C-alpha cells in the first residue's frame, strides 16, 4: 500500500538526522584514536582549514574531534537517562491509573508538583555534594526528575484506555491486572512514549551542555557546553568556535526530538 510506504519513508526520514549525526561522530572518533583534548598550541583558535575542518579551539584542540566525542558521550548519557525515566515512569503512571482511587490521586498530584520543578536547579543541588562530577553523577542528577513526564503521560493515556471496551472485555475474560497492563495498556502507549523519549533525551543533551557551560562539566571536560564556553570567551578572536558549539547543540537536540516522532503516525 502506498500509504504505509509513505509512513515508512517518513519514519526513516525522521530517524535519519540522529543516525547520521551519531554515525559520523562514531566514525570520526574511530578514525582518529587520539584523545579529543590533544593539544597543538601552534593551531590555537585557528579558523577552519584542511587540517582542522571545523577549526581549532583553546590550546589548538581539533574542534571536529571534540564535537564528535561530545556528541557521542552526550547522546549516550541522554539515551541512558531517558530510557531509565521511561522504565520507571511509564509502569508507575499506567499502574496508578489502573488502580484508580487514592494511589492514582497521589501519583497524579506528585507529578503535578514535580512537573514544574526547576530541574536544572535540582541538578546543581545534587551535584553540590561532589567535587568534580563524573558523567555518572550527571546521569543520576538528571534521572531523579526524568521519570516525571513519562509518569504523567502514562497516567493520562491510561485513564483514556482503561474504560475502553477491549480492556473491559479482557478483564471480563479474567485477565489479571499485570496481564492487562503488559498485553493491552503498555503496547498502546508506545508511540506516545517514543515522542516523550525524544523530548526528554533532547532536554538532557541541552541540560548537560548548559551545566558544562556554567562550569559543571563532567570530569573529562568533553562536552558541547565546554565548546560553547570557549566560544563565548573567544567571541572576538575566533567566532567559529561559538557557532560550531551552538550549531551542534541545536543539531543534536532537534534531531533527537525528531527521532522521537519517528514512531508517531
Amino acid at each position, binding site marked *: 500500500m502506498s500509504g504505509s510506504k509513505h509512513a515508512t519513508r517518513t519514519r526513516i526520514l525522521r530517524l535519519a538526522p540522529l543516525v547520521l549525526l551519531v554515525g559520523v561522530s562514531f566514525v570520526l572518533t574511530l578514525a582518529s584514536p587520539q584523545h579529543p583534548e590533544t593539544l597543538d598550541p601552534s593551531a590555537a583558535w585557528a579558523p577552519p582549514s584542511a587540517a582542522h575542518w571545523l577549526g581549532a579551539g583553546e590550546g589548538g584542540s581539533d574542534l571536529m574531534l571534540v564535537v564528535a566525542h561530545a556528541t557521542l558521550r552526550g547522546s549516550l548519557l541522554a539515551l541512558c537517562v531517558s530510557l531509565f525515566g521511561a522504565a520507571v515512569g511509564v509502569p508507575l503512571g499506567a499502574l496508578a491509573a489502573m488502580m484508580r482511587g487514592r494511589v492514582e490521586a497521589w501519583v497524579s498530584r506528585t507529578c*503535578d*508538583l514535580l*512537573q*514544574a*520543578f*526547576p*530541574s*536544572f*536547579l*535540582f541538578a*546543581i*543541588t*545534587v*551535584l*553540590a*555534594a*561532589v*567535587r568534580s562530577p563524573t558523567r555518572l553523577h550527571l546521569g543520576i542528577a538528571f534521572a531523579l526528575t526524568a521519570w516525571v513526564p513519562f509518569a504523567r503521560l502514562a497516567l493520562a493515556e491510561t485513564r483514556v484506555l482503561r474504560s475502553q471496551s477491549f480492556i473491559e472485555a479482557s478483564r471480563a475474560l479474567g485477565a489479571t491486572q499485570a496481564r492487562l497492563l503488559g498485553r493491552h495498556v503498555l503496547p498502546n502507549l508506545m508511540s506516545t512514549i517514543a515522542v516523550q523519549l525524544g523530548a526528554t533525551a533532547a532536554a538532557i543533551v*541541552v*541540560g548537560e*551542555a*548548559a551545566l558544562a*557551560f*556554567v*562550569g*559543571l562539566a563532567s570530569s573529562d571536560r568533553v562536552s558541547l*557546553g565546554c565548546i*560553547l564556553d570557549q*566560544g*563565548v570567551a573567544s*567571541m*572576538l578572536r575566533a*567566532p567559529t568556535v*561559538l*557557532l560550531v*558549539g*551552538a*550549531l551542534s*547543540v*541545536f543539531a543534536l*537536540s*532537534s534531531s533527537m*526530538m525528531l527521532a522521537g516522532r519517528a514512531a508517531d503516525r
Partner: protein
Amino acid sequence: MPAWTQVPPTAARTPRTDVKRARGVAIAFGHSVLSCTAVMLILATAVFLALRLLPGDPAALVLGDESSAQDRAVLRAKLGLDASLPVQYAHFLRGLLTFDFGESIRKPGIMAGSRVASALLPTTELAVIGVAFGAVFGITAALLANGPWLGEKKHWVNRVLVMVAATPLLALAPTLTFALAVRTHLLPLPGDPDAGLSGLLFAGSLLGLPLGAHAGRIGAAALSDIADKPFLRVARAKGASNLSVWLRHALPCVMGPLVTVLGTQLGALLGGAVVIERLFERKGLGTLMIEAYFTRDLPVLEASICASGLLFVVTQAIAGALHAAVDPRVRA
C-alpha cells in the same frame, strides 16, 4: 410573550458574586501556596541531604584533602556538622524560616543570607523582564497568527514559533549575542560594565524568548479554536473593529492557557537565568550559586539554592492566583 424573547438571566455583578470570586481566588492561592511550600521543602531537603548524606566529608570538601584533622573538626563545629542528623535538620529548617544560613566561609563576617539578598535583585530584574517580554511576544505572535493583519503570510508565524521553541536557549543566546553585539554592534558586548539598561533589556529578552515562543504556540492554538465561535461573529456584526474583536473579545478567553504555560515554564526560566548570567557575566543568583559551588562556600550555596527555590515558588503562586483570577473554572 413567547419564551424565546425573554432575556436569560445574566450573571449580574453583585457584591455577593464579588465575594465568591474573591474567595475562589483566595482558595486557589491557598492551594498553590501549599504545593509551593512542598516544592520549597523538597529542594531545601535535597540540598541538606546532598551535603550531609553523600559520601565525603564536607569539611574536607571546603578545606581540601591536605587539611589537618583539627582544622576540619573546627570547621565542622562551626558549620554545626558535629550534631546528630535530626538536630542538624531542625537547625537547618529554623535557618530556612529566618533565612539565616550562617556566615559565608569565603567572606568571613558577611552572612550568607545577605550575600544572597544582594544577588536576588539582579536576577529578579532579569526574570521580570524575561517574563514580561515573553508574555508580550507570545500574545503578539498568537494574535498575528490568527488575526487578519498578515493575510496569507500568517502561517509563517507558527513556523517561526515552532523553530524558536525547538532551539535551546543555550544555542540561541550566544548566537544572537554574536550577531547583534559583535557583528553589528547594535548592542553592548557581554560583560561590558557600561552595558546598563540596554544590556539588561537585551539579556532579559533573550531569557524570555523561548518562554514567548511556547506561550505563542499555545495561545495561537487556543485562539484558532475559538476563531469561528458565534460570540466573535456577533461582535463583528455589531461593528467592532478587528483589533477590538481580537483584543477585547477573543484574548480574554485564552488568558487561562497562556498563564498556565508561563507558570510551567518558570522552572526552565530560572535555569535559563543561570546560563544568561554566565553568558553576560552579570551578577546574580546563578553566578553566586556557581561561585559558591566552586569555592565550596557551603552556607552560601545552601542559601542561594533555597533563594532560587523561593523565587520559583513565589512566581508560581502568582501565576496560580492570576490563573484563578482570569478563569472561573479554576476557582470552583
